[in-house]
């Protein structure tokens, strides 16, 4: 039995497939930015900033490889403190752009800390869940994990940046799941979240599709429910009633289900309904328009749905080979909104065709595959959880952004990591992937 040959140098242990895939994504992203921002008047500023961020990200990626990632676990309290401080300071000192107070100015650089805080929360939660390894079945673990993330999410919501705050949820779920939390508990907690979000969606759908619903019909009842009145009360009573009936039924059928389950179900269902209605009432008009655009893209072809339609047209018209860099009519002539930021994937789809878009998707899948591999091979549970959290986060953000560009997801102002233009986003993502590379490179724990 031959011993495992362990490379003696750090560079020999680095996952070059992963580095190559990341470099490939950044390269395609750079091309796409250079092409898409071509027609804007601040083109020079854009590519200058992009290359500075690229250099900075590359340096951070390499630097992160140099020291052991476990330092983040050791200094977890400081990391959490820094995160909170950043998010509080951005609300106090930050500069506002387009209604969002999301930017911190440091001299001539401005910096968006929300995405950094997301990665930092992954680090903090990984440490927490590592410590709670023996109490993973406790409901308190789930609640405490949420309690750690809650202040950060709350501060991001205050900016307000609904979309970024939303990306925390799958990330936390992924980490809790991978850490071994009880799936039923997760379903309760995140089922609650999902229900809360789906309530405004259903209400909006009814309002758009059946604006003149007859009184007494189901859509009319749904719309009435959104008014926090008698209809809402009726639904809550119905939920409790049916849960009670289900409980009686279960005992009658001698099923071994705890009565607590039915009580919890009733509380969660009605709670989700009430918070959902509350969210619906507090939604800003641009957010509601995005909901409308998603549930009925044709209803307002010149308003909110315009972006979705134009993005699909851009991607679809690219065909197999694309229209060529600098030649996409949708992006170059201004039909595609946010063409070098949120909708950059549509620019790639249009100008580089199925080959380019497929390549981006493929490279993304390689990156995610290498992150999960790093998780599998990580020398400790902390490294495993960090990788699991980052994999969940990147997968969700990718699904949200590309899904939006191809018309599968509602419009959310989320950039595509490594591709979209945005200096701080690029630097932070490269840094977080540097941590993944670090975890992989130091996988031989026993040596």
């Amino acid at each position, binding site marked *: 039995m031959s011993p495992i040959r362990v490379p003696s140098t750090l560079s020999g242990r680095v996952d070059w497939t992963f580095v190559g895939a990341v470099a490939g994504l950044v390269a395609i992203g750079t091309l796409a930015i250079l092409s898409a921002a071509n027609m804007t008047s601040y083109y020079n500023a854009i590519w200058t900033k992009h290359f500075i961020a690229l250099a900075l990200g590359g340096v951070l990626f390499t630097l992160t490889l140099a020291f052991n990632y476990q330092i983040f676990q050791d200094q977890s309290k400081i990391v959490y403190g820094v995160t909170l401080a950043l998010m509080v300071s951005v609300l106090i000192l930050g500069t506002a752009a387009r209604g969002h107070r999301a930017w911190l100015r440091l001299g001539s650089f401005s910096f968006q800390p929300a995405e950094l805080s997301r990665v930092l929360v992954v680090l903090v939660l990984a440490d927490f869940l590592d410590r709670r390894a023996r109490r993973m079945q406790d409901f308190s673990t789930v609640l405490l994990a949420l309690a750690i993330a809650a202040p950060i999410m709350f501060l991001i919501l205050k900016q307000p940046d609904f979309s970024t705050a939303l990306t925390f949820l799958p990330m936390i779920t992924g980490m809790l799941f991978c850490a071994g939390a009880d799936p039923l508990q997760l379903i309760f907690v995140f089922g609650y979240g999902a229900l809360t979000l789906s309530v405004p969606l259903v209400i909006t759908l009814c309002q758009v599709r059946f604006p003149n619903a007859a009184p007494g019909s189901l859509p009319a009842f749904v719309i009435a429910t959104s008014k926090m009145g008698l209809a809402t009360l009726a639904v809550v009573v119905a939920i409790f009633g049916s849960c009670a009936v289900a409980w009686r039924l279960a005992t009658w059928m001698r099923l071994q289900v705890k009565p607590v389950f039915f009580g919890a179900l009733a509380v969660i269902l009605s709670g989700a309904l009430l918070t959902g209605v509350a969210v619906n009432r507090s939604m800003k008009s641009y957010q509601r328009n995005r909901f409308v655009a998603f549930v009925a893209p044709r209803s307002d072809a010149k308003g909110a749905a315009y972006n979705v339609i134009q993005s699909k047209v851009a991607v679809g018209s690219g065909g197999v080979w694309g229209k060529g860099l600098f030649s996409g009519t949708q992006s170059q002539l201004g039909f595609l909104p946010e063409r070098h930021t949120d909708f950059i994937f549509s620019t790639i789809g249009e100008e580089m065709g199925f080959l380019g878009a497929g390549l981006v998707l493929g490279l993304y899948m390689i990156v995610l595959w290498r992150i999960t591999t790093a998780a599998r091979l990580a020398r400790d*549970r902390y490294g495993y959880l960090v990788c699991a959290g980052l994999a969940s986060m990147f997968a969700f953000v990718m699904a949200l952004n590309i899904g939006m560009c191809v018309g599968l997801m509602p419009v959310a102002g989320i950039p595509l990591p490594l591709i979209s233009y945005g200096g701080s986003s690029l630097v932070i993502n490269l840094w977080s992937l540097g941590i993944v590379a670090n975890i992989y490179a130091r996988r031989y724990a026993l040596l």
Partner: protein
Amino acid sequence: MNHAGGGGRERLELVWLAISLIGAVLGLRLAQLQLKDAAEYRRLSDINSSLTIYQNAPRGRIYDREGREIATNQAASSLIFLPRKGQSVRDLEPLAQELGRRLNRDPQELLETLERADRDESAVRLAENLPRGTMFQLRELQTLYPGITLIDEARRYYPYGRFASHLLGFMGKMGPREWRERKAKGYRADSRIGKMGLEGAFEDELRGHDGGKRMEVDAQGRLKGELGSTPSEPGSNIYLTIDTAVQKAADGGLRKTATGRGAAVAIDPRTGEILAMSSLPDFDPNALLSTDPGEVKRSAQGLPEFNNAIAGAYPPGSTFKPIVGLAALNEGRITPSDAFFCPGRFELGSHTFLCWDHKGHKRISWIMGLAQSCDVYFYNLGLKTGGDRIERYARAFGLGAKTNVALRGEKAGHLFGPETRSRSKNKSWYDGDTLNLAIGQGELLVTPIQMAVVAAALANRGTVWRPHYTRKIIYADGRPDYVQRPERAAVVAAKDAAWDQVQEGLRVVISSGTGYPARIPGLVVSGKTGTAQNPHGEDHAWFITYAARPGEPASIAVAVLVENGGHGGVTAAPVAKKMILAYFGMPDPDAEREVREAERAAHRAVRAGLPAAAPKPMMSAGALR
């Protein structure tokens, strides 16, 4: 520390499975958009980024019989608005205000046009045929308001202006119903179509294929460059049988009559070619294409669309008498020498029928009966011939039926006689009806073009032509030319002796009868006057005539009607005379006299130190040829 191997890392595989599923879904969606539906999205993206600006094709030209253009095209600038994607309606308001000021139009109306273009996402013409000054002003606006563009295209132009207007027709916008019908034929909402006359009748031939420039536009509606263009193809050219000089004489002659309302038609009796067709009041077709919408509106509102020449039905009066005479002579009911006594009145039972000349014509036979248009003579003739025979001859001459000239809106008139009566409710035919028929009154109604065909048939001894005004059509698409051949509608069969007697009578009408004002030295002119009683007012003045150089067959036949013009010989005959003079290229003494008088008046005014109205230069008919 909990190391690798424990801690449930198998759960990661579920997460990886979920990630793979997401990747697969996104990959399939990409394939659906970019591989399966790529062509459809490609089309949508092309629609987005390109706008076709149509350029009106030059319409086919219309020439007179000598190859002069009477309808042609001019280069003109049009103002186009290209809507921008995602534009809010509010942005259009300042543009509408600004354009309204510059083009002198109602901004509200402009705003509606702009909004419609924005809704349909299609280019729209805001103004056509812009004057040069306005054009330069609008060029400045192009920089302020993206989406405003000026293009060059062809526009219909009628060099003679107010000329044969009912025959030529005019160009106008389509109504909603016309637009629905023509949409499939490649017309656009702002296309103009030929209306009325031959612009309308030959719309399919005259219209060309509009060209277009495919322009690349950005999301702001700014033109980025030309992607390609399709040249316009002009329409087919039509050569007419119209004689410009005769037409001008007809239009001008009718305009100078007392009422200025009427019609004149000239036909070549040898071929059935229409030499002139005039209907007054007329209009200037150029005014309907003006840039100034006010002028277009005024012109369209007062447009005399009714073509009296083919759609006006009048009692023929005495111009019907040659037909009665031919029936009587050819059927042997009388001989030319048979004389009747005219005391100025005719008793039939308890009714008294008057002659137009109440003094009476005393003893009168065929030639003088026709020349003096003696009603009593024709009462006798009518009773001898019988209503049925007169009706048969009238029908043979084409009365009571359309001449089938290729124009929309022709009327058949009304033939009245024992046979027609037998088919109506009131079946009985009385001798009183025969008397009315014999002098072309009663229920008899004819159109000027029918009477021109009658005049031609009298001239050529019985050939009733289907009148036509096209000589040939030279198709733009390479089809063999269409060449119009004479079409015989009917032949009035009669003995030569009868024709001789009728034609002799018609000649004497001019040389020493009621048609004396139409005589022209050096030409053989024959004709018949008519003064048709009309229950609605003053008598209608009629004159039918044909003329020939001595020793040659007649080469022009004319029918002139002046509504409420009074006596045919006085009002209608001079118009016909002008037309005949123009046809033979002879100077018009009347016109020359008018010019001399105007000059004299001007001289007098100058000598008296008074401001003189500038003498209107009256071109003599001869100078036109």
